[in-house]
């Protein structure tokens, strides 16, 4: 009996602890704390800031979608603005032309993007690395042109785009429209992140990661690479499409020129800054692409984008693997400090 206790004790000592808590416990604690802050925050902020935070969450969902594709499955995409646009337009057309309530357009946008992503993923199967980046780059550049096309004008409103009406809080809740949309987006965000976590930890997630790390070995293990890669594209597009749909509702407006290549680049920047393959990194990426351009503009109006570029380079120099690597580094240091104190 005494021997067993001994074994149990060493086992407990072997799991790394920071300040008396294990890593999963810390993660749970941080998640709960972040959620509480997120719930309380809009009550103390002006509507405009609430709106900005809502956009941060929307970008985070889009970046999460890209992360599932690039970070988990190892496929590049510079074309996610296209899926964001498809999501946004699905919602806008459904709301404006068919009078569908906004919350019902979300799943519709998701499904449309899932199919679109899956279909784009099929030919993309033949492409790898750089070539895939090129094909998706072309997709991003072509998207605004396709949206402006005169044969779709009846639906898309051409260059003018579509204006949609901002929804009120339901059940007579005493919330402003911006605050209501904040909580609505937060709920979707939590749902999407939880689903992504589950997906990555599942059998499917392991298959996706195996394809990223060694496609040949994955194939040899019996993973249907073609199916999983197309699926990854589809699911990734679904995430980004839902983000686009939310974006359309929150901004109340869609137009072809909101979905240029620049948007796809922003998502990529958010992904790398947050950390490729690290799910919570998407939030950090969302914060970065929302606030850093504004910050750069405050530094210098004329040279705002040059300042932004310099900030980007500095970030990559300081954290070559994004916030994920930085967090890992800090956690490692803390751990060593704790154990040396003991």
């Amino acid at each position, binding site marked *: 009996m005494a021997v067993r206790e001994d074994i149990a004790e060493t086992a407990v000592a072997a799991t790394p602890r920071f300040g008396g808590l294990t890593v999963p416990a810390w993660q749970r604690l941080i998640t709960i704390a972040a959620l509480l802050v997120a719930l309380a925050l809009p009550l103390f902020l002006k509507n405009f800031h609430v709106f900005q935070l809502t956009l941060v969450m929307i970008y985070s969902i889009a970046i999460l979608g890209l992360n599932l594709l690039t970070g988990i499955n190892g496929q590049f995409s510079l074309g996610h603005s296209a899926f964001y646009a498809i999501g946004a337009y699905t919602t806008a057309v459904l709301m404006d032309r068919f009078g569908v309530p906004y919350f019902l357009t979300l799943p519709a946008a998701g499904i449309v993007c899932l199919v679109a992503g899956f279909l784009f993923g099929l030919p993309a199967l033949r492409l790898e690395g750089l070539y895939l980046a090129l094909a998706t780059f*072309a997709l991003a550049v072509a998207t605004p042109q396709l949206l402006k096309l005169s044969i779709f004008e009846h639906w898309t409103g051409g260059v003018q785009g579509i204006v949609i009406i901002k929804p009120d809080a339901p059940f007579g809740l005493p919330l402003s429209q911006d605050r209501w949309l904040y909580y609505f987006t937060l709920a979707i965000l939590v749902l999407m992140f939880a689903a992504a976590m589950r997906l990555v930890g599942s059998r499917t997630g392991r298959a996706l990661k195996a394809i990223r790390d060694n496609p040949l070995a994955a194939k040899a293990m019996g993973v249907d690479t073609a199916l999983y890669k197309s699926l990854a594209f589809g699911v990734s597009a679904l995430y980004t499409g839902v983000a686009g749909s939310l974006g359309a509702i929150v901004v109340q407006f869609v137009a072809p020129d909101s979905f240029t290549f620049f948007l796809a680049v922003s998502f990529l920047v958010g992904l790398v800054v947050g950390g490729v393959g690290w799910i919570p990194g998407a939030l950090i990426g969302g914060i970065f692409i929302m606030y850093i351009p504004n910050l750069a503009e405050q530094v210098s109006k*004329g040279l705002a984008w040059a300042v932004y570029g310099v900030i980007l380079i500095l970030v990559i120099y300081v954290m070559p693997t994004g916030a994920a690597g930085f967090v890992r580094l800090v956690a490692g240091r803390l751990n060593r400090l704790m154990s040396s104190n003991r």
Partner: protein
Amino acid sequence: MELFLHQLLAGIATGGIYACMALAVVMIYQSIDHFNFAQGEMAMFSTYIAWQLLAWGFPYWIAFILTIVISFIGGVVIERGLFKPIRNAPVLSHIIVFIAMFSILNSLAGFTWEYTIKSFPSPFPAQPLFNNRLIGAHDLGMIAITLILLVLLYVLFRHTRLGLAMRAAAANPDSARLVGIRVGWMVALGWGLAAAIGAVAGMMIAPVVFLEPNMMLGILLYGLAGAVVGGLTSPVGAVLGGFAVGIVENLAGTFVPVVGKELKLTIALVLIVAVLMVKPSGLFGRAAVSRV
């Protein structure tokens, strides 16, 4: 028939622009194994330098050569200063630095020279050669310069020790280092060359599309399409691919009804994807083979 011939020649003329850009794209791809998204902006910036030199009163060809030299040095400096420190960072981090460069160069050019559209002189006579009605002298000159560049590059890469060393450094950095090639400097040279070719492309394109900070965006995509169609490993393929894109763009724009002028860029997309589907290594490229 007359219309067809006219559009074909117009296609070849615009194809010359894309061929120039495609050549620069392939050049840098050969030496660093990445695609540089800031390539177009580097070319644009070089063209502004040329414009500034001309405005200061330098004769055209002196400004031309000075711009090439400055761009070459600029390319080397960018590699040494920006990319050497993050040599071991993941590919995506490199792409972010390309994006950063893109926005810095674009913003800097707009700030220094303003966003107004400027005209840029052509070194070739305004009168069409031999008084033909089909193709302008500038277009012919541009094609000639692209072909000269191609020959020079061919000689450099196939028939000089330096070219061989550069190819070795790109193909297998570790082995190249073992036989005494200074891989770091070869990469820097590749950047310099790409910047110089980009400068030539920019100076040839600017008289056609006019000079402004965003002039290169569309052209870069077409150049890319050309490079991919021809094969990213083959300079000859890139040039031919560039011409092919120009011709297809013009003919499709004229003869396919819905496509018209609205979807010209989309043609580049369709072309890229179509070629990649059938022949992922491009029409003239070698298939990438890697040891497992």
